[in-house]
């Protein structure tokens, strides 16, 4: 009471400055309290917001889940698609789950390992168990799972098993064009083919259009495969090229491989015979020696070459497989594929000139091509006169099938050098803007000779009525293994066909490695029995796929008929 009284007395006394400072203090206290109340209110509101409004079942959950998934996916741009000339997908990248284990969180190692081996039979139980018992915090179990496999792993319910999302390269057509497309390693880096040479470009996310046509690729693959099987051959190579611009429409090298399953591929399957295989291709080279003869000496068609006796040069003896034992005109030399006649042609042209001519056609230098797996042709060094003779009929010089197809295209298209290309837009130049390698007259004569071979010579089996097919056979003996000389039983049989020969559009080259004769081929394994029929079937299928109409030509109006006057005696039927 006394205190209250004193207080009251004191309060009465507090007037002026003191009174105002007390009020100010009280005001500040209220302000601070208010601030705290407001802060707690905000916290309460925020807590309500986080737990109820944006809670686990709120609208934002899905989006945040996505962000979490995104964090586990590499942030780089998806490797771009590769498509064919018609936009058909050849290679793409899909997001796939990869399975890892954090052994610390594995509850039952035995059960988890057993479950995983049941899902992935290719994994060994021991290896998986060893991994799951490891001290490490992160171990890959299996990469590139299918959605079904992922679901089955989730069914195991093991907390120590987790997924990381990775990008996987997928080739919908499997092995169909494996040597052209190539493949990538597990980190998505191109290791061969287009995947390797355009690794950076595809990595930027820009899709790539190839000149390949998946339909023609299938036809070529089917027919080369069929021929390889029919003649029990070691392998085969095929190329289809647009002769006017060098675009490669199809390219096959057998045996081939599945780019999704590289682990089981043999080195012989991964080997790209189109650009890496250098072969002595035999008589198909007569196209070049004959063209060189016309181009450099401008000889008439009735020029004759004495093919009665084999040519002997040192230890070499050049003889004819289809011996005619008489003097042969140029069309006869070409039609009967006379080695003697061709060697004489080479001799007439001269060593320097023939070598330069071959070089101009790109047969002697490493191929300049979009795919990096290329090799240098095998060329005699030094190139002596004897090499001129053998090179005239395709021995002593080994080159790749793609270089040969390109050289043939450069001659038959009117004489303009073309460069092989696999990427759309790589052949924008008009043909006549390219360098001329032979004159129009030589090109025309060569087309006539090519037609003659198919109409009446060694390439009859390649003829498709109505499609004016021209071509040249080539049966080369392979070098003897571990010794000098050639093995007569081990052949490289090839045929290069062009059609329609009067105005060529396509060149088709097929090489069969070591075919064995069959009953149907009367034991022959030469090009006329092996590669030529394959080219006939390819052209037949191509015509119906591309909608190319046949032309009816009267018997005496056949392209190249005027050459028949230079064919004197027809020895065989």
């Amino acid at each position, binding site marked *: 009471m006394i205190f209250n009284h004193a207080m009251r007395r004191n309060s009465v006394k507090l007037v002026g400055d003191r009174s105002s400072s007390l009020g*100010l203090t009280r005001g500040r206290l*209220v*302000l601070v309290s*208010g601030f705290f109340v407001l802060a707690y209110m905000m916290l309460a509101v925020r807590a309500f*917001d986080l737990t109820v409004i944006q809670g686990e079942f709120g609208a934002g959950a899905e*989006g945040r889940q996505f962000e979490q998934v995104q964090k586990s996916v590499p942030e780089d741009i998806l490797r771009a698609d590769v498509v064919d000339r018609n936009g058909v997908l050849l290679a793409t990248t899909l*997001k796939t789950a990869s399975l890892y284990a954090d052994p610390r969180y594995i509850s039952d190692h035995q059960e988890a390992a057993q479950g995983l081996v049941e899902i992935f039979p290719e994994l060994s139980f021991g290896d998986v168990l060893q991994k799951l018992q490891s001290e490490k915090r992160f171990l890959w179990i299996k990469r590139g799972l299918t959605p079904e496999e992922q679901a089955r792993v989730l069914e195991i319910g093991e907390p120590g098993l987790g997924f990381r999302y990775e990008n996987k390269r997928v080739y919908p057509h499997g092995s169909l064009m494996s040597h052209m497309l190539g493949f990538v390693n597990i980190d998505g880096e191109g290791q061969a083919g287009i995947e390797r040479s355009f690794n950076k470009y595809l990595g930027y996310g820009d899709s790539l259009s190839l000149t390949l046509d998946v339909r023609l690729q299938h036809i070529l693959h089917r027919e080369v495969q069929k021929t390889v099987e029919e003649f029990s051959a070691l392998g085969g190579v095929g190329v289809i090229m647009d002769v006017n611009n060098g675009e490669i429409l199809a390219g096959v090298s057998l045996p081939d491989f599945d780019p999704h399953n590289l682990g089981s591929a043999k080195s012989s399957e991964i080997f790209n015979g189109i650009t890496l295989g250098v072969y002595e291709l035999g008589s198909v080279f007569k196209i070049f020696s004959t063209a060189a003869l016309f181009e450099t000496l401008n000889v008439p068609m009735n020029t004759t070459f004495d093919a009665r006796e084999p040519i002997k040069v040192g230890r070499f003896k050049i003889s004819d497989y289809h011996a005619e034992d008489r003097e042969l005109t140029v069309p006869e030399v070409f039609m009967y594929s006379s080695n003697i006649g061709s060697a004489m042609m080479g001799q007439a042209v001269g060593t320097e000139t023939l070598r330069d001519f071959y070089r101009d056609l790109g047969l002697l230098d490493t191929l300049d091509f979009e795919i990096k797996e290329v090799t240098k042709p095998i060329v005699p060094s030094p190139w002596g006169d004897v090499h001129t003779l053998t090179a005239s009929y395709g021995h002593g010089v080994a080159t790749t099938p793609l270089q040969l197809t390109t050289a043939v295209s450069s001659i038959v298209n009117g004489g303009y050098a073309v460069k092989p290309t696999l990427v759309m837009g790589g052949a924008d130049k008009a043909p006549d803007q390219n360098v001329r390698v032979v004159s129009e007259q030589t090109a025309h004569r060569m087309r006539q000779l090519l037609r003659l071979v198919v109409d009446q010579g060694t390439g009859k089996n390649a003829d498709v009525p109505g499609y004016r097919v021209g071509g040249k056979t080539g049966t080369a003996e392979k070098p003897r293994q571990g010794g000098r000389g050639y093995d007569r039983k081990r052949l490289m049989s090839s045929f290069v066909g062009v059609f329609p020969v009067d105005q060529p559009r396509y060149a088709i080259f097929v090489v069969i490695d070591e075919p064995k004769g069959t009953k149907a081929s009367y034991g022959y394994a030469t090009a006329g029995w092996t590669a030529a029929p394959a080219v006939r079937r390819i052209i037949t299928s191509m015509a119906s796929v591309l909608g190319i109409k046949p*032309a*009816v030509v009267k018997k005496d109006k056949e392209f190249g008929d005027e050459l028949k006057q230079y064919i004197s005696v027809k020895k065989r039927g």
Partner: protein
Amino acid sequence: MKKIRGRTIGVFLVAALSGAALLHISQNVQQAEDDLARAKLSYESQQEMIRVLDVEWAYLNSPGRLEVLAREYLDVQAPGAGQMMPGQIALPVGDIPPEIGASRIEGDGVSSLVHNISQSSGEVSGVVRGVPAPGRKPKSQKGDFGALLNGLGKGATQ
């Protein structure tokens, strides 16, 4: 005292209003972010779905697979070179040449063929009469698809 209280209330009011506005904005931003994330998720999953479907389409239309299926289920085989008629049947490639008018496409084209199949309960009549039927094998009844093919075959050979 009255003066201080009024100012305090004013500050409280401003603070409360600012807080509310901030919360509102933050909510809107959060909502927008969620919408964006959801849209991205949807876009990404649809893109992925399109890629998967593209692969599936390319695989299912692979010429090798189609050839096997055609051999198994169709009674026709690819025409030989001798079966293609010069100057009369040209497979359409690229643009339709001007000389082939729209009426011809509508009259003999695929759409009319499909219409007739769906409309007719019995045989398909004469729609594909002009097309040669190369190398037909003996027909076999294989469920609904086989029946459809059978119907087509009858139409073609009439």
